[in-house]
């Protein structure tokens, strides 16, 4: 069953036309990744889903409901949470307060307590630091906190924007292990934006490669790992290599 469907979504980001007709769909329970070089429109896609960027054309449907024009608060309430790029931890809030803010839209105290336990079970290091200020955590811990904060909204769909950004390879593996665990144990659907195509494709079921605001390639993770367009979308096509370089 399709949980999220974007059809021909266009959006502007300041003066830039960031999305030029994106169509993707995410099946319930899947891990889907959006790949592509910087500026391809990956982050804008997530922002459009969360309602922070208003699409200028196209439709975004979640669980059969149209998200276009809904407030971010409403969208989070429906069960779409986001872990933003660069973690964006509330630096002056403690770890526990950060997690509470993730659950802002919820009212079920018991469910919140249960999810808090799950987050601490997933990331025991956060439990040791509940009273510490978010800004004093290390990069890896901040990423864990950001994911935990996203989970506290009890999302059916969790959007992750570059969870591996700036992390050492060993930490990246930890983070993705946790993400797989979330997917398996909670049944949370994941839509992950990644620059690190290798890690993303190793963990995802399906992937889309964006290029200048459009879907350039799509396919199962295994298939994408074999396609050379993926490499080219990052490093440019070698056919284009100019004669000038020799001069």
């Amino acid at each position: 069953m399709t949980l999220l469907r974007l059809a021909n979504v266009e959006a502007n980001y300041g003066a830039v036309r960031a999305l030029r007709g994106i169509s993707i769909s995410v099946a319930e329970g899947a891990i889907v990744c959006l790949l592509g070089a910087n500026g391809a429109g990956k982050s804008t896609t997530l922002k459009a889903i969360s309602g922070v960027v208003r699409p200028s054309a196209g439709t975004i449907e979640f669980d059969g409901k149209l998200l276009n024009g809904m407030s971010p608060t409403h969208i989070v309430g429906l069960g779409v949470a986001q872990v933003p790029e660069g973690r964006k931890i509330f630096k002056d809030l403690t770890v526990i307060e950060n997690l509470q803010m993730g659950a802002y839209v919820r009212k079920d105290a018991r469910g919140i307590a249960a999810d808090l336990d799950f987050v601490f079970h997933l990331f025991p290091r956060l439990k040791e630091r509940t009273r510490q200020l978010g800004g004093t955590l290390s990069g890896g811990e901040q990423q864990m906190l950001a994911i935990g904060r996203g989970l506290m909204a009890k999302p059916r769909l969790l959007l992750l924007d570059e969870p591996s950004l700036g992390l050492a390879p060993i930490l990246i593996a930890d983070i993705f292990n946790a993400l797989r665990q979330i997917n398996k144990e909670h049944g949370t659907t994941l839509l992950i934006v990644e620059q690190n195509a290798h890690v993303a494709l190793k963990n995802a079921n399906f992937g889309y490669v964006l290029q200048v605001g459009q879907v350039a390639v799509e396919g199962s993770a295994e298939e994408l790992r074999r396609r050379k367009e993926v490499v080219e979308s990052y490093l440019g096509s070698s056919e284009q290599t100019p004669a000038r370089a020799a001069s």
Partner: protein
Amino acid sequence: MTSHLRCENVTVRFGGVVACDKVNLDVEEGKIVGLIGPNGAGKTTLFNVLSRFQPYEAGHVYFRGGPVDNKRPHDMIRLGMARTYQNIKLFGEQTTLANILIGAHRLIGNPIANMFWLPKARQTERTLHNRAIEIAEMLHLENDLDTLVRNLPYGYQKRVELARALASNPEIILLDEPVAGCNEEETNELKEIVRRVNRDLGITIFLVEHDMSMVMTVCDYIYVINFGANLADGSPTEVQKNPDVIGAYLGEDYHA
């Protein structure tokens, strides 16, 4: 083969995070040199180091062999270095012409004389004006000279930024992601302009760019950094084939 802009073991720290770790690079005079690296690799930080916005705790920057560690941003333009910005920093409420003229600021002479429109200052103003128009023509902006910059399409704004940099009569221009956010057509146009600036005006160009088609087609030489440190350098073909570079971009041991 002379070095135009060089940095040696530059290290920058933000709190506990090392943004640049003993980075070395050398921009050769008259060439187009590129700097690439994955997101968060420290490219913009390094760029800010070179244009002297960013202090660094170790290392040196040399301009034509002379140290410029103690220069301030507005000094660099007097040495002949101009730059552009990743997220366009134009004077949006002013016209294209005014924006280009600001680029020529270092040529206005005595500001007090200029302020009172003394005869010599008027002469200078006229010269600057004419030159600004010439630059606009070269970048195909001549029909938008009196348009407010914020009303211009994105690709035009990028060109105004370049025009502003050119107005200072620079010897080297630092371009921070000149085609970010541009469509294919705009990208191709800018590629051509960058080549022309380099070839016809003999201006050295150092650029940071994510768009690989741009980097690979216009650059003579490329530096790659990752996690704030040098990863590789070489000609575009060399860099493209370098397994370390592929790994840095697509993940460790990515087998294409």
